[in-house]
């Protein structure tokens, strides 16, 4: 019962954020960059500015809405890169075994040992700030869980009759991985991806907060927080609302991921059936 509720709440939060990002151009009351009004800076929430204004007099609501675009783009695309890398490495390592498996395993362990944010920070330092390098930095550093799950699922699948049967029928290894193994591990990979999106949103915020992510004046939740740091006593709303947005998005994706996992887990299914 509460499981269903959690999933619904997660779905609602995610839909809300996606709608905000997609419709930002239509529903944002002000331009997030150009409508700077220094005369009206640090205004508390009011009917004109529902979330108040920041230190440069820009509408916080508009910036939060446009910031959702950045966060979601980073979250979805970087996680997509992670999922593809992780699945490809994990499935091939589990399927072929041998030295390739050892290599992938070693690489995965190294990736798990280094905090991914530190790794991403290093990549950003080399590539310089901006959206493309952010996508790359977060997309290359967080595939280890996907890889592990894909590898262990493949290991248990590859000795099952239908994979062996495909081999004896003459299908090539690539074909077998694509048609026999991949469809059967998509569930867990999807769950990891959903949870990963939340993590990527958080990492984007952290990197932008540190000044190596999205460059101002382009709004992102992370650099909004960074800008509002000095105003935390005089204009707390400038920090609270982007913070709440991050919180809601990450929570939404995590609940969604947990819900998906429970729904796709066959053990859970038999227990409730």
């Amino acid at each position, binding site marked *: 019962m509460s499981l269903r509720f959690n999933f619904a709440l997660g779905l609602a939060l995610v839909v809300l954020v996606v709608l905000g990002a997609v419709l930002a151009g239509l529903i944002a009351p002000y331009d997030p960059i150009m409508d700077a009004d220094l005369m009206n800076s640090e205004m508390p929430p009011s009917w004109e500015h529902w979330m108040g204004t920041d230190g440069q007099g820009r509408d916080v609501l508009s910036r939060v809405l446009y910031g959702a675009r950045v966060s979601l783009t980073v979250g979805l695309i970087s996680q997509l890169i992670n999922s593809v890398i992780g699945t490809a490495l994990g499935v091939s390592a589990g399927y072929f075994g041998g030295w390739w498996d050892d290599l992938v395993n070693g690489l995965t362990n190294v990736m798990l040992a280094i905090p991914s944010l530190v790794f991403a920070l290093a990549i950003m330092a080399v590539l310089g700030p901006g959206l493309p390098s952010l996508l790359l930095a977060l997309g290359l550093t967080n595939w280890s869980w996907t890889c592990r799950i894909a590898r262990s699922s493949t290991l248990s699948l590859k000795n*099952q*009759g*239908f994979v062996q049967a495909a081999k004896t*029928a*003459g299908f090539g290894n690539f*074909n077998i991985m694509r*048609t026999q193994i991949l469809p*059967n591990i998509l569930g867990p990979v999807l769950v990891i991806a959903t949870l990963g999106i939340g993590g990527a949103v958080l990492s984007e915020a952290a990197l932008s907060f540190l000044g190596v992510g999205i460059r101002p004046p382009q709004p992102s939740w992370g650099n909004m927080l960074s800008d509002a740091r000095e105003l935390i006593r005089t204009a707390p709303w400038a920090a609270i609302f982007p913070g709440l947005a991050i919180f809601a998005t990450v929570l939404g994706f995590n609940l969604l991921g947990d819900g998906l996992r429970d729904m796709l887990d066959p053990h859970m299914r038999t227990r409730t059936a």
Partner: protein
Amino acid sequence: MTAPLLEIRDLKVHFNLPRQSLLGPRRVLRAVDGVNLTLHEGECLSIVGESGCGKSTTALTVMGLQEPTSGEVLYKGKPLNGPGAPSRKQRARIAQMVFQDPYASLNPRQTIGSTLLSQLKLHGLASGSEAQDRVAAMLKRVGLQPDHARRFPHEFSGGQRQRIGIARALMLDPQILVLDEPVSALDVSIQAQIINLLMDLQETLRLSYIMISHDLSVVEHVSDRVAVMYFGHVVEEGDWHSVFTRPTHPYTRRLIGSVPDAEAILTGARGVPDGVAIPSGRSFSPDISIRRDPGQSSEPSALVPVGSDHRVRLAI
């Protein structure tokens, strides 16, 4: 006698086991340790034995799913492994396999039709409506309905799934079918149906079977020849009638004597028929009174003929 269809020559499959300690000796599991077997056309050869005796590993080697450590598998005199061996695709037309567990042997995300069709497409045997017709005909042949092609595996019972497994194995018209415990996961009443189906198919399609089983009553019912495996060796081998009516190796005798047979128990006629006398001064091998470490190499032994088509392993 005609030339054999398939010949297994001195097959060895060894697995390296992890060392027990860092500097401990390297341990080797001799899963299959020098097996010789022949399969003639139209014949059903059964390999019996208990778990870990190497019967399944032997079957997997025939299918190319397990690389042998040494020895060879010959099909019509040509090797199936090593250099010059046929490709996986060529091999597919020679031998196919029916798996033990009907629940794990079908891809849960593929319809039955697409599982069967994809094979025809891969080998370029048929396409379009002709392929559909061949799938429908095959489903009928194994006792299913043509419209079952649209369904997913979970919509079928265990017995039906095993029929689908057989259909899949027959799709490429192979000459040899390797049956790995084809009925042991099924209910008694379903077993009879599947055994009958397999016997019918063997006759109509002129198939040759290698059946792996631990169920001696099923083996006796369908086999032409029987090989008893024990710790990686064939300890007794020959014509089914000879092996079952004159079981000679102590392990074969113990195996037959252990089958809980209802009528025999109730009538008190419980006993194993007499074996063949072995030459005086010779002893059986491997010695089954000692449960040896499977890693340990065994004493020299050889299969010695004790009848027209009946051989028993004796120590040299």
